[in-house]
């Protein structure tokens, strides 16, 4: 099979000037070198030890997850620590956390497409893959929480012998529609973005079975200009549709809480506050994944420090959005004078025997830690970036936990107050879901193009691509 040749001198000359305008464009690359480097990660390179070791660790967690699920199905949700009054806890926390992580993918791919942000090209594929897998992890939790997951289809409107319909006025049914729409649209957006890259892999694969596999995935894409014309329009429209979708999904998730009457849940700030938290955790996850990947796969040309820097800035900004949510909650409660609400928030802040320790750790992780990124040096320091991202992820999990648990454990009737105690099964279910994410993500890295080659080519100077010259 023909292979692309090296960079032409003209291309190289055009790219020597690494001006500020070209910060996000891979310096010194040509169409051929972009193609070579990215497709060789899939086709040309033997699977290395590091991948196998991580995959083994992920598989171990996934196996454990399967074991936990089997036990859960056999025994019921009673193996978890949930009980009256705290009937929602780890599973719903993990659901909200995972679906939040799944938001950066569509934000990076869709909203940044519409805003013509060049830097997204390096990371949009990774972020979209992350979205798909995070939403898969998220989806398992409400299903397992159903108690009898084999009846999950009762949530869908289908003509049935019981002559019943789902209660469409319930936010829980909205959730089913929002999350499944989000998964479908994200999957389509991800797949559509990969079609031209599958064609590249098909054309470069040397083994028959890979030519067949990538050929089928490429669906006969032949890079026709007339096809590109419709493709670009469809892609732009999908981005335009996905943008309000991202906002709506986490808003609907927040409605699970906000349209209830629980003190601390019944708040109008929830939808935007949930979306902000989702973006924060999603960006933290992208950074936490991109840093090891750029080292391990040698793609520092494509994911440069400038890319990490701009993501650090977004992390700082979204940290402020989220923190604004906290302070606004506290302020509104204080000014409203609602006794029950005030009591819940007092518990959150100084209820040391309950959850206040977690509150202050959360604030440290989610609000204080990202403040480091005011200093330019830290925005370009990978170690700091990685540690802060992991802290933010942990903080966001704890924040979701607090949000769900504190209200439930102290509602209107003092006789039904209670404290949540997680069991080992709560913890294993959550940790096991990370295994599902790790395994699926590693398979993505091994078999699919992890950076969009066609968009990267269109970014090169002189390419007359969509983003070039903007």
């Amino acid at each position: 099979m023909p292979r692309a040749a090296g960079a032409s001198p003209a291309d190289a000359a055009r790219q020597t000037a690494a001006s500020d305008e070209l910060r996000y464009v891979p310096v010194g690359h040509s169409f051929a070198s972009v193609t070579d480097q990215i497709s060789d990660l899939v086709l040309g390179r033997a699977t290395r030890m590091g991948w196998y070791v991580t995959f083994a660790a992920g598989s171990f967690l996934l196996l454990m997850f399967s074991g936990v699920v089997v036990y859960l199905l056999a025994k019921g949700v009673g193996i978890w620590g949930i009980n009256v009054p705290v009937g929602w806890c780890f599973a719903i926390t993990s659901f909200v956390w995972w679906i939040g992580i799944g938001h950066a993918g569509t934000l990076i791919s869709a909203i940044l497409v519409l805003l013509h942000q060049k830097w997204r090209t390096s990371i949009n594929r990774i972020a979209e893959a992350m979205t798909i897998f995070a939403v898969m992890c998220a989806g398992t939790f409400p299903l397992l929480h159903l108690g009898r997951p084999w009846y999950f289809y009762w949530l869908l409107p289908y003509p049935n012998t019981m002559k019943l319909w789902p209660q469409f006025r319930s936010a829980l049914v909205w959730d089913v529609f929002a999350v499944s729409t989000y998964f479908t649209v994200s999957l389509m957006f991800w797949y559509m973005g990969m079609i031209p890259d599958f064609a590249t892999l098909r054309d470069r694969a040397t083994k028959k079975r890979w030519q067949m596999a990538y050929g089928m995935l490429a669906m006969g894409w032949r890079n026709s200009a007339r096809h590109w014309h419709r493709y670009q329009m469809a892609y732009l429209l999908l981005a335009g549709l996905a943008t309000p979708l991202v906002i709506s999904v986490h808003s609907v998730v927040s409605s699970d809480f906000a349209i209830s009457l629980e003190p601390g849940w019944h708040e109008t700030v929830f939808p935007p506050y949930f979306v902000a938290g989702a973006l924060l955790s999603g960006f933290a996850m992208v950074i936490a994944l991109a840093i090891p990947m750029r080292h391990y796969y040698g793609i520092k040309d494509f994911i440069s420090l400038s890319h990490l820097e701009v993501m650090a800035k977004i992390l700082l900004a979204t940290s402020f959005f989220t923190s604004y949510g906290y302070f606004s909650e506290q302020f509104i409660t204080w000014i409203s004078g609602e006794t029950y609400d005030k009591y819940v928030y007092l518990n959150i802040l100084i209820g040391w025997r309950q959850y206040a320790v977690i509150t202050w750790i959360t604030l440290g992780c989610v609000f204080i830690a990202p403040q480091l990124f005011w200093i330019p040096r830290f925005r370009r320091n990978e170690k700091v970036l990685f540690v802060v991202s992991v802290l933010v992820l942990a903080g966001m999990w704890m924040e979701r936990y607090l949000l769900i648990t504190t209200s439930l454990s102290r509602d209107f009737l003092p006789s039904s107050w209670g404290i949540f105690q997680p069991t080992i099964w709560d913890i294993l279910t959550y940790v096991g879901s990370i295994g599902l994410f790790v395994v699926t993500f590693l398979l993505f890295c091994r078999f699919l193009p992890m950076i969009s080659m066609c968009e990267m080519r269109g970014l090169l100077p002189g390419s007359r691509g969509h983003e070039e010259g903007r």
Partner: protein
Amino acid sequence: MTPDAKPKLFGLMAEFASVDALFAATRRARQAGYREMDAYTPYAVEGLAEELGEGKTRVPVVVLIGGLVGAGAGFLMQYWSMAVDYPFNAGGRPLNSWPAFIPIAFEMMILVASISAFLSMLFMNDLPRPHHPLFNVPQFARASQDRFFLCIEATDPKFDAERTLEFLSAAESHLGIVEVPMDPPAAPRETSIEQTHVAVMS
């Protein structure tokens, strides 16, 4: 191809190393009156489809219709099941409690519109189509990597194997002209790019 039987042609294709050369050649071919032609580029090139004479796409119209159908069907599904088929009084709210139906109607709008965008793109592009005469040309594999191609198809009324070959050969800074046979070569053979530049005239 056997030397005596002339293979049926899909078209003649010129190869270019730069997008600027492709643009120039496309403009020249259009000015010369060729219509049934297409360019092949490893990424979306702005303005190339217009240069080929492609008008506005109908994808947005399909998406609009899809969105309206999705929203309408989503709303009606809820209205019909909640207010007509199984009227159920939830907390004294009206049976047609339309504000509560908006989220699902919205999600359905996005879902159907997105599926319409994806499927209409594929349908209008005549995909999936795993076979195509262009794939008979070995160096066409670089259309997905780093090369640019312009193919004038045999169905064009102005197409004439010899004159079109001459016309394409006069294009500036092309890397070779190649015949695109309609059918794949009878026996698969090992070929490299250099060997298959059969009809090169420069």
